[in-house]
């Protein structure tokens, strides 16, 4: 399993351009392919969430099974900031990010010196704690009903104000943030920090023996990924015009792991993006034909874990690899492609 071994100094790569073009035009063609605008909004928000989550899962190898909680905290923080403090888009989104990151940082204090399955178990426990508190603290979170009537606040730049009321408008707000995030994460994962994260995944002990304080790095990446989850959560609150508890449950926390893995988050920066698209489209299309869509999706997921844990991105890479090696040497080893 491997991300491309060659790192780059570029801010924008061909893949990023493709992604920007593809997602930038999505509102124009999404209905033509039989989907609907709101789905596009959900998809792009979950992509943001998944990209941030993959810093943790794919890059650092830390399987958090409680990340849905942070997504939810972001949504509540956005709503509360809007109701209680200042209904301004930038302020509310910033509040979602900061509040979630603060919760994430506190949680990470407990998790940062753990790894593997112990990490997973503890992250489940923390996810449950937040879920439980959110479900009980009705005065703040609205309990089982959630926060209702959250507004899609306009984007304000000085005197200019852009509405986000319609799904397409909101989509473009999310898209803009998505672009910024993709470029930042791309740079981050190609910096020494990103390389140390991957080193931690491969061999945590060795990382400490080349002079890095592993627990601090793990703490920081956990906090960073929760901050991104908070941003996604804030946007999701806008999309749904509400903040609801279910997203914080264990099932949803598991679902984000499932999406990232299916897409190939372990081997590719773009894995989470593919995974989110596959999940939502499968859900919508399969879901329209069969009530038991999760059965088929679950089976597909099991087969993938068993036979191709590198996910969609891994398949894609194998495909490219086969093509490349066929050209180069007929009997070459197709498993690895560098670059």
């Amino acid at each position, binding site marked *: 399993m491997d991300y491309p071994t*060659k790192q780059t100094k570029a801010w924008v790569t061909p893949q990023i351009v493709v992604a920007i073009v593809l997602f930038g035009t999505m509102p124009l063609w999404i209905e033509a392919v039989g989907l609907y605008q709101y789905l596009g909004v959900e998809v792009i928000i979950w992509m943001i969430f998944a990209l941030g989550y993959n810093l943790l899962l794919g890059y650092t190898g830390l399987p958090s099974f409680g990340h849905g909680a942070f997504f939810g905290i972001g949504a509540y923080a956005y709503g509360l900031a809007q109701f209680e403090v200042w209904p301004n888009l930038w302020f509310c989104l910033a509040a979602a990010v900061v509040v979630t990151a603060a919760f994430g940082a506190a949680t990470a204090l407990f998790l940062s010196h753990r790894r593997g399955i112990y990490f997973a178990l503890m992250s489940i426990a923390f996810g449950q704690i937040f879920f439980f508190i959110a479900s009980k603290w009705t005065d703040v979170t609205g309990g089982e009903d959630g926060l209702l009537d959250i507004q899609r606040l306009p984007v304000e730049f000085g005197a200019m104000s852009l509405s986000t009321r319609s799904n397409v408008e909101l989509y473009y707000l999310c898209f803009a943030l998505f672009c910024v995030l993709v470029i930042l994460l791309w740079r981050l994962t190609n*910096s*020494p920090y990103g390389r*140390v994260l*991957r080193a931690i995944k491969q061999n945590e002990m060795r990382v*400490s023996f*080349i002079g890095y304080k592993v627990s601090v790095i793990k703490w920081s990446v956990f906090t960073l990924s929760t901050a991104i989850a908070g941003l996604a959560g804030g946007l999701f609150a806008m999309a749904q015009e509400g903040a609801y508890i279910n997203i914080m449950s264990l099932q949803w926390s598991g679902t984000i792991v499932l999406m990232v893995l299916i897409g190939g988050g372990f081997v590719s920066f773009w894995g989470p993006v593919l995974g989110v698209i596959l999940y939502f489209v499968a859900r919508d299309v399969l879901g329209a034909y069969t009530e038991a869509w999760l059965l088929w999706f679950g089976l597909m997921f099991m087969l993938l874990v068993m036979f191709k844990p590198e996910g969609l991105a891994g398949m894609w890479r194998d495909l490219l690899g086969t093509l490349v090696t066929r050209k180069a040497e007929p009997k070459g080893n197709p498993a*690895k492609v560098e670059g």
Partner: protein
Amino acid sequence: MALFEARHLHKRFGQQVVLEEINLSFEEGRLSGIMGPNGAGKTTCFNVLTGRYKPDRGQVLFDGEDITGSPPEKIVRRGISRSFQIMNLFDEYTVLDNIVIALPGIRKKLTNPMHAIDADSEMQDRAMDILDRVGLPGRARTNSKSLSYGERRALEIGVALATEPRLLFVDEPTAGLGADGTSRLADLIQSLKEHTTIVMIEHDMQFLFDVADKISVIHWGQVIAEGTPDELRANPWVRRSNLGELN
């Protein structure tokens, strides 16, 4: 004064006393060896010396400073580095990347997202120098997983060297190597000796007697004998053993 000193180290795991009373000192510029039978506590001793475990009692001094119980990263930053017996490489990385990530120059730019490692020619050159020293210059772009066993041993030492240590601990470098690999490793160690202070745990007594300046014998969690190879060989029982016959 010795560069590195361990005084009265005592370590238990549960009911088991692993280190009873360890007293060691290593001089700058020398190659010191630690040997002992299987299960004598060599590796635990190593782990305590390099910060992986904290001793229950006793002191570890480096360059006059107390570093007892310091976490590994602090010890590394002070200039002590180690290689592992069970190889601990970054299997997804190339040989070069394994070295690069261990360079202190990269560590200092950790939080700079603009810094692209592959475009940092200074660091790349430095890493290539180290690969030269451990004899792997031609393998820089190879994935570390596909190295041969002996090459992995060399890379293991290379990664430890990359942290630019004043003192290098090497844990059983010959384990699993054939005669050929062992002799090549002996050459490597000899050449490293010129620049770096080395402490080496070794099961293979002959190897150690060949390269070490001073040897400590550890058994039952304590140092049961100490001296230069010649002093140790003077023991009548040693002369009667394989080791004696060899010379």
